[in-house]
C-alpha cells in the first residue's frame, strides 16, 4: 500500500489529528498511534509525523512485525518457562498464557506492538465511518490456512458469530466493539441481523449500534484469535491456523511444543508474514514462582514473567532483564455502601493519610508509575495528569473525628495476592502510613482463589486489574453505575455522563480533558487507594535476540532469533 493511496481513503479524523499535531497539541508519537488506529499504515503515519520510521514499520509489505535483523540466524529452539494451560477453545480463553501457546498458530486481525501502537495483522487495513459506527476491514490476501484453504471474510464472520453466541460463553461479547453488535431478546443476547456484512472475499463490514473507538485494539484481545471457519472445539482435534508455527504437542501442566509449518494441504507453505527464524518454540510448565529458578538452572532460554521480589535474583543471573511499563495495577477499593466506608469522610481520611509516592519505591524500586487514586495510567494515550495528591495526616484525623471516630478507627483489608506477594507489601506500607492518622489497618491475607470469590463484595479489598490499551476502557468496565465489575459500588450520574462524552470523542485534546473530568470525580469520591502502576519484568538469555517486552505479556516471536 503506497502512502498516496492511504491518504486518499484516509479517515477525516486523521487530517484533524494531523492539524492538531502540527499545531503542537498532539505529540508526534500520539499522532502515529491515532493514525494507525484509524487505518493509516503505521509506516505512512510515521512519515506524516515526520518521525524516522522505527524498525517495526516495514511499510512495503505493511507487516506488523519488527524488521528482520540483518545478523539474524535461522534455526534453533526457543525454550520458554510459562504455565502450560488448556487450549480447547480460543474464544473462551481465560488467561494470557493459553493465548501465548496458540499465538504463533492462530493469529489476530490486528496486533498491538510493544510500543502500544495497533497495526493491521490478518487485516490489511481498516476504515471507520465518521461517526465511528461503521468499520470496514480489508483482509490480507494470500494468507493460507495450514490445511491449504484460503483465509477469507467467511472465516472472520464465522468467528464473530461464535463470539456472540451466548451459549459459547466467550468473554469477547463484553468487548465494546462486539457488544455493539448484539441485542438482548428475552434476556438472551444475540447477534443483530445485518451487523456483519461480507462485502467480498476479502472485505467485511461491521455495523455497530454505538460509536466504538477501540475496535482495532479489541481485535488483539487475547481471546479474539481467528480460527478456521470449520472449527469445532477442542482445538487439539482440529490443529489449523494461519501462523508460521503449528502446535505439535500440548500437554497441560507439562509442555507445549510448536514447530515451523513447512507445508499446507500438500503444497509448500509460505507464511504471509515473511521470514521467521526459530525452528521450534517450546513452552515448559513452571508456575510463576519457579520460572526464574528454572531460568537460573539454564533449563530454559526465556520466561513468561517474574515478580519484583525476585529482582535481586534476576540481576545476579546471566541474562537480560526486560521491563515493560503497563497499566496493570492494584486497586485497593472501598465499597461505598459498606460501613464504615459508606461515610465519604472515612474514605477521604484513608486516602489523605496515604502517600502513594512513598509506597511505589518500596514496592517497585525500578520502573512503574505512581498511581493517583483513579483508574487511568500515564501509559494510556488519553491520560492527563490531575493536580498532584498531597498527604495530609492532620486533615485525615480531623475528618475522622468529624465522622465520629475521634480516637481513630480500625479497618481490615482483604489481600489475595492474586498478582503476587507485592500486594501485601503495598498493604503493609499503607498500614505503616495509616498508623500516623490513628487508623489501624489489619491485613487479612487469604488465598488467591478465595479472594476471587469475594472481590466484588468485601468492604475493603485489593484487586489486581490488568492492562487495557485505552484509559476509557477500565473506567467504563469498573466504575459505571451498576456494571458487573463495579467492585466499589460507586454510582455517580455525573461520572457516567462525563465518561460517555469521553468515549464518543476522538479528538485527543478534548478527550483527555473529558476523561480528566471523569477522573477527577472518581478521585474526589475517594473510592480507592491506587498506589502503583506496576511494570512487568521478564528475562531472556543473552543468546535470545529480539525478545519483546509487551505490556500484556503477549508473546510474538516471529522475528526472534537465537545465536
Amino acid at each position, binding site marked *: 500500500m503506497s502512502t498516496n493511496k492511504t491518504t486518499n481513503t484516509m479517515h477525516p479524523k486523521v487530517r484533524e489529528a494531523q492539524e492538531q499535531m502540527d499545531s503542537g497539541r498532539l505529540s508526534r508519537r500520539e499522532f502515529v498511534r491515532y493514525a494507525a488506529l484509524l487505518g493509516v499504515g503505521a509506516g505512512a503515519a510515521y512519515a506524516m509525523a515526520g518521525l524516522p520510521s522505527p524498525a517495526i514499520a516495514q511499510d512495503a509489505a505493511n507487516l506488523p512485525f519488527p524488521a528482520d535483523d540483518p545478523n539474524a540466524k535461522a534455526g534453533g529452539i526457543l525454550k520458554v518457562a510459562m504455565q502450560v494451560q488448556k487450549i480447547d477453545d480460543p474464544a*473462551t480463553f481465560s488467561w494470557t498464557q493459553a493465548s501465548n501457546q496458540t499465538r504463533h498458530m492462530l493469529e489476530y486481525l490486528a496486533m498491538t506492538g510493544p510500543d502500544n501502537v495497533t497495526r493491521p495483522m490478518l487485516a490489511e487495513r481498516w476504515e471507520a465511518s465518521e461517526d465511528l459506527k461503521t468499520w470496514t476491514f480489508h483482509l490480507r490476501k494470500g494468507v493460507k490456512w495450514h490445511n491449504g484453504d484460503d483465509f477469507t471474510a467467511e472465516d472472520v464472520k464465522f468467528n464473530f458469530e461464535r463470539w456472540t453466541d451466548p451459549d459459547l460463553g466467550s468473554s469477547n461479547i463484553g468487548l465494546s466493539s462486539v457488544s455493539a453488535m448484539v441485542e438482548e431478546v428475552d434476556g438472551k443476547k444475540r447477534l443483530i441481523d445485518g451487523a456483519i456484512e461480507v462485502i467480498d472475499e476479502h472485505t467485511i463490514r461491521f455495523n455497530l449500534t454505538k460509536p466504538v473507538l477501540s475496535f482495532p485494539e479489541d481485535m488483539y484481545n487475547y481471546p479474539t484469535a481467528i480460527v478456521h471457519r470449520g472449527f469445532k472445539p477442542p482445538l487439539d482435534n482440529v490443529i489449523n491456523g494461519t501462523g508460521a508455527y503449528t502446535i505439535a504437542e500440548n500437554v*497441560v501442566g*507439562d509442555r507445549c511444543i510448536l514447530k515451523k509449518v513447512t507445508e499446507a494441504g500438500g503444497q509448500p507453505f509460505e507464511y504471509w508474514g515473511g521470514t521467521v527464524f526459530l525452528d521450534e518454540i517450546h513452552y*515448559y510448565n513452571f508456575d510463576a514462582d519457579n520460572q526464574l529458578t*528454572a531460568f537460573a*538452572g539454564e533449563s*530454559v532460554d526465556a520466561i513468561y514473567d517474574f515478580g519484583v521480589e525476585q529482582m535481586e535474583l534476576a540481576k545476579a543471573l546471566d541474562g537480560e532483564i526486560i521491563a515493560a511499563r503497563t497499566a496493570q495495577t492494584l486497586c485497593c477499593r472501598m465499597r461505598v455502601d459498606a460501613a464504615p466506608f459508606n461515610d465519604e469522610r472515612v474514605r477521604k481520611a484513608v486516602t489523605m493519610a496515604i502517600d502513594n509516592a512513598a509506597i511505589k519505591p518500596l514496592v517497585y524500586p525500578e520502573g512503574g508509575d505512581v498511581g493517583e487514586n483513579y483508574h487511568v495510567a500515564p501509559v494510556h494515550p488519553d491520560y492527563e495528569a490531575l493536580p498532584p495528591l498531597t498527604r495530609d495526616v492532620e486533615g485525615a484525623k480531623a475528618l475522622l473525628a468529624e465522622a465520629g471516630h475521634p480516637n481513630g478507627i480500625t479497618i481490615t483489608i482483604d489481600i489475595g495476592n492474586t498478582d503476587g506477594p507485592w500486594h501485601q507489601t503495598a498493604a503493609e506500607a499503607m498500614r505503616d502510613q495509616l498508623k500516623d492518622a490513628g487508623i489501624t489497618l489489619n491485613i487479612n491475607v487469604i488465598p488467591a482463589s478465595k479472594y*476471587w*470469590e469475594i472481590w466484588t463484595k468485601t468492604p475493603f479489598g485489593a484487586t489486581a486489574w490488568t492492562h487495557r490499551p485505552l484509559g476509557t476502557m477500565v473506567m467504563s468496565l469498573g466504575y459505571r453505575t451498576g456494571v458487573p465489575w463495579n467492585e466499589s459500588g460507586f454510582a455517580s450520574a455525573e461520572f457516567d455522563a462525563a465518561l460517555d462524552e469521553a468515549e464518543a470523542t476522538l479528538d485527543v485534546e478534548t478527550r483527555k480533558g473529558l476523561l480528566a473530568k471523569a477522573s477527577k470525580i472518581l478521585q474526589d469520591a475517594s473510592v480507592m487507594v491506587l498506589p502503583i502502576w506496576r511494570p512487568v519484568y521478564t528475562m531472556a538469555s543473552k543468546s535470545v535476540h529480539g525478545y519483546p517486552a509487551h505490556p500484556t505479556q503477549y508473546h510474538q516471536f516471529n522475528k526472534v532469533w537465537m545465536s
Partner: protein
Amino acid sequence: MLKLILRRLVQMVLIMAVSSLLLFAIFDTPEFKKRLAVQELGGFAVSALTEESYKSWLAGRGLDVPFHQRYLNWVGNILSGDFGFSYEKNRPVGPLLADRLANTGILAFFVFALMIPLSLILGILAGMKEGSLQDRSISFISVFTTSIPEIASAILLTVIFALGLGWLPVKSAMIGGFSFRELVLPVLTLVIYDFGYVARMTRASMAEVMTSQYIRTAILKGLPYRRVVMRHALRNALIAPFTLIVLQLNWLLSGVVVVEVFFEYNGFGKLLLEAALFPDVEVVQACTLVAVAVAVLSQIISDIGYTFLNPRIRFA
C-alpha cells in the same frame, strides 16, 4: 494366613469406599465449585457470570447433580477401569496418574536401593556392640539426620551441591527427558531423612538378638564371633527391619510431596498437591485410592514377610 489377607483386602475396599465418598462430599461444597470455576474461567469472568450461565457451566462440567449420584457414576467408571478426567490437566486421570506414579516409582527405587543397604549395615554395626563408641556415634548420626526435616535437608543439599559447588542442577523438572543428575538431590534428601529411622530399628533388633540366650551360648561354645553374627544373629535381627522397610513405602508417598514440590519433580506427590489446590476432584480421588492401596498392600506384605521370616509366629 489367607484369611487374614482376605480380611485386610476387604477392609481396604471398605476404607476406599468410605474415604472416596467422604472426598466427594467434601469437594461438593459450593466454595470448591466456585474455586474450580475461577480456575477455569478466571476470577473476573466468574463474578461477571449470571446465575444462569454459572448453572449451565456447572451442568457442562457435570457438577449440577447431587454428589452421591456422581459418586455412584464414578464408582461404576472405576470398576470399568475409567479413573475419570482431570479438569486441570485436561486429560484422562488413568494415564496421567500412571505417568506420575512411574516417576515417583523411579525416585522410590533409587531411594530404597540406597537406603536399605546403608541403614542395615549401620544398624548392624551399631547393634553388634551395644554401648560402644561405634554404637553411640552411629546412633547419634541417625538421630541427627532424622531430625533434619526433608525441607531443610533439601535446602542444605541444594545450597551445597547446586548453588555452591555447581555440580548438580537446582531443579529436577527433567524437561529435557530423564536425567540422572537431576535425580540425585531428591533421592539424597529422602535417604537422609529416612535411613536413620530404619538404622535405629535395626540396631535395636540386633542388640536384642545379641543379648539373647542362644547367641550367648553360641559365643560361649567358642564359635567364631563373625560366624555367630553372620549365621545366627543376622537372620533373626533382620525380621523387624524387613517389616519396617516395607512400611516405609507408605511413608514415602507422604514424604515425596515436599521433595517433589521443592525440586519441581513431576511425580505423584506434586500431582496430589496441585490437584487438591486446584481442586481437581477426580485426580485427588485417584491419588487417594492409590495411597490407600499402597498403605494396605504394604501392610499385608510386611505381615506375610514377618510370618515367613519368623518361625515362632504362625497365624491361625
